[in-house]
């Protein structure tokens, strides 16, 4: 790794390094264009986020008068108070219930399925099931929403939180199975064999071996599923009706209709609805970013 730090090192030493850009003969210093683009885009990403946060602390009257990009000179929590007074916590709990009610069953079912697919690799039926899950990645939720609506009505689940969670599980399973299967394949067969010789059955192997070993992948899947469901809009929009059942995205949307020109209050609801996700992201970030970017970039 010292080769990385020393710009005068010769070519052969560099070959082992992970650096993708050697300072070789054809290069003329750092890549300014790409560098500029990288930091410029960071600004593009951050400016709206910055605006959301500072504006959510402004009094409505200040919002119209002050410089839009300056933090308020007399910050206030009134907007947050207003949002909380409008049943925000109720919607928040709805979202938590739906997110947990989707994520936990998804990872349990997908772990079992992935385990079966990897352990039963010689079974033709399991191979078929695996390909079916892979095809499932291509099913757009919108296209299936009308029959889902029909099924949910027939089951008597319309306008309940379960109506959101159950289809969410079905649509989260393909990616979860894919990630977990890829992960389980890397577990050395010898580990399973030695457990089997010790008299363990498949069910024990699943929980005592596969479950702890796949924990990083489970975190990735859980965070990804959790974020997707937390932000889901279509299922709650179609499958629920009463304000009692609102989840975060629907709540933010209805706040905009309710607060109208009170932009700071609307933005306070945006902030409050995003904070849990940011917390989750902070927990699972390392695995999520590397899992997704390396998984896709192969």
């Amino acid at each position, binding site marked *: 790794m010292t080769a990385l730090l020393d710009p005068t090192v010769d070519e052969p030493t560099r*070959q082992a390094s992970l650096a993708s850009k050697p300072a070789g003969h054809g290069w003329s210093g750092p890549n300014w264009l790409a560098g500029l683009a990288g930091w410029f885009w960071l600004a593009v990403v951050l400016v709206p986020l910055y605006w959301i946060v500072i504006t959510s602390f402004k009094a409505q009257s200040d919002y119209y008068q002050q410089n839009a990009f300056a933090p308020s000179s007399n910050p206030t929590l009134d907007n947050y108070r207003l949002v909380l007074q409008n049943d925000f916590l109720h919607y928040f709990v709805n979202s938590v219930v739906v997110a947990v009610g989707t994520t936990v069953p998804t990872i349990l079912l997908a772990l079992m399925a992935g385990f079966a697919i990897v352990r039963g690799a010689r079974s033709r039926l399991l191979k078929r099931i695996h390909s079916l899950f892979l095809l499932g990645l291509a099913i757009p939720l919108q296209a299936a929403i009308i029959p889902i609506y029909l099924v949910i009505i027939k089951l008597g689940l319309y306008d309940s939180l379960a109506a959101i969670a159950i289809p969410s599980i079905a649509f989260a399973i393909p990616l979860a199975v894919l990630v977990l299967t890829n992960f389980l394949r890397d577990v050395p067969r010898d580990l399973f064999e030695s457990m089997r010789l010790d008299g363990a059955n498949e069910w*024990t192997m699943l929980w005592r071996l596969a479950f702890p070993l796949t924990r990083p992948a489970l975190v990735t899947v859980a965070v990804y599923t959790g974020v997707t469901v937390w932000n889901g809009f279509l299922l709650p929009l179609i499958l629920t009706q009463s304000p009692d059942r609102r989840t975060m995205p629907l709540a933010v949307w209805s706040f905009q209709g309710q607060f109208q020109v009170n932009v700071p209050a609307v933005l306070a609801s945006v902030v409050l609805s995003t904070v849990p*996700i940011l917390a989750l992201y902070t927990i699972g970030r390392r695995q999520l970013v590397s899992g997704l970017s390396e998984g896709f970039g192969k």
Partner: protein
Amino acid sequence: MTTDAPPAARPRSNPRGERAGQHGPVLWMALPALAVFLCFAVLPLIGVFALSFTRWDGLGPIHLAGIGNWRSVFSDSDLLHSLWVTFEVMLYSWLVQTPISILLGVFMASQHRYRAVLAVFYFIPLLLSAAAIAVTFKALLDPNFGLGPGLHSSLLTQNWLGEPALAMGVIIFIVSWQFIPFHSLIYQGAVRQIPQALYEAAALDGAGRMRTFLSITLPQLKYTIITSSTLMVVGSLTFFDLIFVLTAGGPGDSTRVLALDMYRRGFGANQMGPASVIAVILVIVGLAIALGLRRLGGDADESQLEGI
């Protein structure tokens, strides 16, 4: 998130465990996931095809309607219009996102010190819900109370969501804002896997930066470009929440993509039959594009698909 195995996971000594290593006993473990997946994803997909031949108002009984829905949807210029708008969103968002994502990906791959920091912030837009993003930009772009009047800038004080061309531009911008970071992360992962020796050979041959980029980086990224483009293009078919909250398809019908057209017919006008026709078209268009892009990748892309 469960971190502990449920009580059922207690190890049990099983005298017949020796035979359990065969594939038979594990099959049932795949069944619960399969059942949920079949009932709420696969069957609905088949069901929507069936429903496209029926008449149903969303509440009452379902009647067979033959090919009536298909005939009426295809004879109506709305379909062509939403197909066109969908195509525009797809094309423009691809054209804007791809070059910027590649450029950013290459940059991030070469920045060891800042890569981690950039990745943290680049990921944040992906975490916000489309509804929250749409609500935010709607406020930000408001011609009376938004950013333009706030900064006293007449250039920024446009009727952003009231003019068809501007509204389309706003949608493309927001989509790029949200998804470019994700795609640039994909690209940076791929750039880091390009064999170092290729760059050294190019440097020995005296190739400049541009030349190296065009003849080494870009061709090496071929499969990644296909993967990322598939995600972008197929993903753009499903921009529903963002457009629904931002413009609701307006002004007029200028941003009414297929998914919105489906919603409008089905849950707005209570005509589930014609809405199902649109849903089937949505599936067919998505599949056609995904398969077409896959063909572009040639036969060697099996490993690529495994990576997805």
